[in-house]
């Protein structure tokens, strides 16, 4: 549905995004992940036809975003980062206007269906200016869903929602994502991890990596880390542990707790457990540690920033990620 090739956008002399290439198919939820200012919003604005790229080509549903802009806009639903609402209109009036401008048939019925979907049916006559932030966010979402678009582009959609609504929202996105294409940006990692089929990590206008959340985790974790807790002093234990082939990077964490890593592709937990018991210790805990997407994200975006700082070690390392 979405094909992006060599997308570049300059704001004056500043390059916001540089040579982005990615695709998203029907029935796919693509997560767009990156720190603030990475170029997520810029990319989405280009995809929705709000602004033209400096160079590159984007087609949505087979239509070019520049040459067939109106055709693209008809099949795209868009929720911008700042929710576009007229605060002196009621929820119904606003959605009616949006439905009319998008030429939605049976608009009245469709508006109530959508309000039901975002759980705002009881607020249809309320003024938008009097709604809470979370409710406004849902009105914005309703606006994007009204015309049942093939492609849904959501810029930071869960900001301002309370945890319960976030769960509902994820369910909603997953159900929509079954037969449509959803592109969702976020800097909240668990969200992307839970909702998306595929994640695209973008930093400083470039794609850092692209994979499924699971693959990403597996690929980047590489070696498996295991956290072990025993009864007794581990200092006597560690030399014995080093003798097991495949165990690397042993790090004591407390008097009775340490972590070790096994070389990729080997699960050494049975051997380690046997060794500990044979050495006369009680094994209390043996827990594999997975790098969360958060760690991976920090690692990826930090690595980028560290490249120039390697040249002069005196300079403090700038941490790119804000979250």
């Amino acid at each position, binding site marked *: 549905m979405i094909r992006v090739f060599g997308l570049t956008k300059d704001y004056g002399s500043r390059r916001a995004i540089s040579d982005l290439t990615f695709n998203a198919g029907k029935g796919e939820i693509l997560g767009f992940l990156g720190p603030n200012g990475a170029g997520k919003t810029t990319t989405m604005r280009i995809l929705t*036809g*709000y*602004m033209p790229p400096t160079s590159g080509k984007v087609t949505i549903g087979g239509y070019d975003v520049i040459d067939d802009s*109106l*055709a693209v806009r*008809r099949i795209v639903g868009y929720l911008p980062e700042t929710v*576009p609402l007229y*605060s002196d209109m009621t929820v119904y009036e606003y959605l009616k206007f949006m439905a009319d*401008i998008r*030429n939605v048939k049976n608009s009245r019925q469709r508006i109530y269906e959508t309000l039901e979907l975002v759980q705002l049916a009881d607020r249809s006559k309320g003024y938008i200016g009097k709604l809470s932030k979370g409710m406004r966010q849902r009105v914005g979402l309703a606006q994007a869903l009204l015309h049942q678009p093939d492609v849904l582009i959501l810029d930071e959609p869960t900001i301002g929602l309370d945890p319960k609504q976030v769960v509902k929202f994820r369910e909603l996105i997953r159900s929509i994502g079954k037969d449509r294409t959803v592109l969702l940006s976020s800097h909240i990692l668990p969200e992307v991890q839970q909702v998306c089929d595929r994640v695209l990590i973008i930093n400083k206008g470039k794609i850092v990596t692209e994979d499924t959340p699971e693959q990403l985790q597996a690929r980047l974790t590489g070696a498996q880390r295991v956290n072990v807790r025993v009864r007794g002093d581990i200092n006597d234990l560690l030399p014995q542990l080093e003798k097991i082939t495949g165990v690397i990077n042993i790090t004591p964490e407390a008097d009775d707790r340490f972590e070790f890593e096994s070389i990729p592709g080997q699960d050494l937990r049975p051997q380690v457990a046997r060794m500990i018991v044979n050495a006369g210790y009680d094994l209390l805990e043996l827990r594999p540690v997975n790098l969360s997407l958060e760690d991976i994200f920090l690692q990826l975006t930090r690595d980028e920033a560290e490249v120039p700082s390697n040249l002069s070690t005196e300079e403090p390392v700038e941490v790119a990620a804000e979250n």
Partner: protein
Amino acid sequence: MRNIWVIAEKEYKNFFISPIAYVVSFAVLLILGIIFYANVLAASIQQYAPSIQIVIGPLVTLLLFTIPAITMKSLAEEQKNGTLEILLTAPVRDWEVVVGKWLGGVLFILTLLLVTWFFPIVLNQIVQPGIDQGLMLASYIGLFLISSCFLAIGVMTSSFFSNQIAAFFACLGILLIFWMLGLPAQAAGATAGGDLLRYLDLSEHFYPTFFRGVIEVKDIVYYTSVTALALFLGSVSVEARRWR
């Protein structure tokens, strides 16, 4: 055409949701009423029949100052609130947004002009043998043309700014300059430059003709072309926003 109408309709309704419509109408009608009363009183003392010009004259001046207030928020507010982003990503062309905003303003001014019709009706009752209906009709046609021209300039200036106050004063400035081009034209005399300035003067196409009951094609052409030009520039300005 449908899109323009949808936007115009929303714009028109919004005038009545916000207090602007009521404040502007109240101010215009109050000032017009005071001037009307004073003129009728003076006429009755001096024993002459006042013409409809006692309404039309002040009304044009009032429109000059109130139309910038009506149009100032049309596009500036959309830009500030980010709602322009959703209009420009809806399947609507840029010029349809601009023309829709203008048409909404035209409908509102039409409503206001309809209310001011009250004064000619009253005047018609109190003077013998009634007012000059041809003069009134020509004046109102002129008023309509000149208002739509002001509105187009207002929507255009609103598209330049994301601040309503800036949009208001810029529009008022442009209107006043084009309203008073006749002054330097007088100084220039009967030269080509003077003629050009006189031709560009917004008021030069109203007072000598419509205001005296004369309808001339050149004036209609002038007002419609200024309107079209302003709407065109407004559309270009909205489109240029995309490139920034």
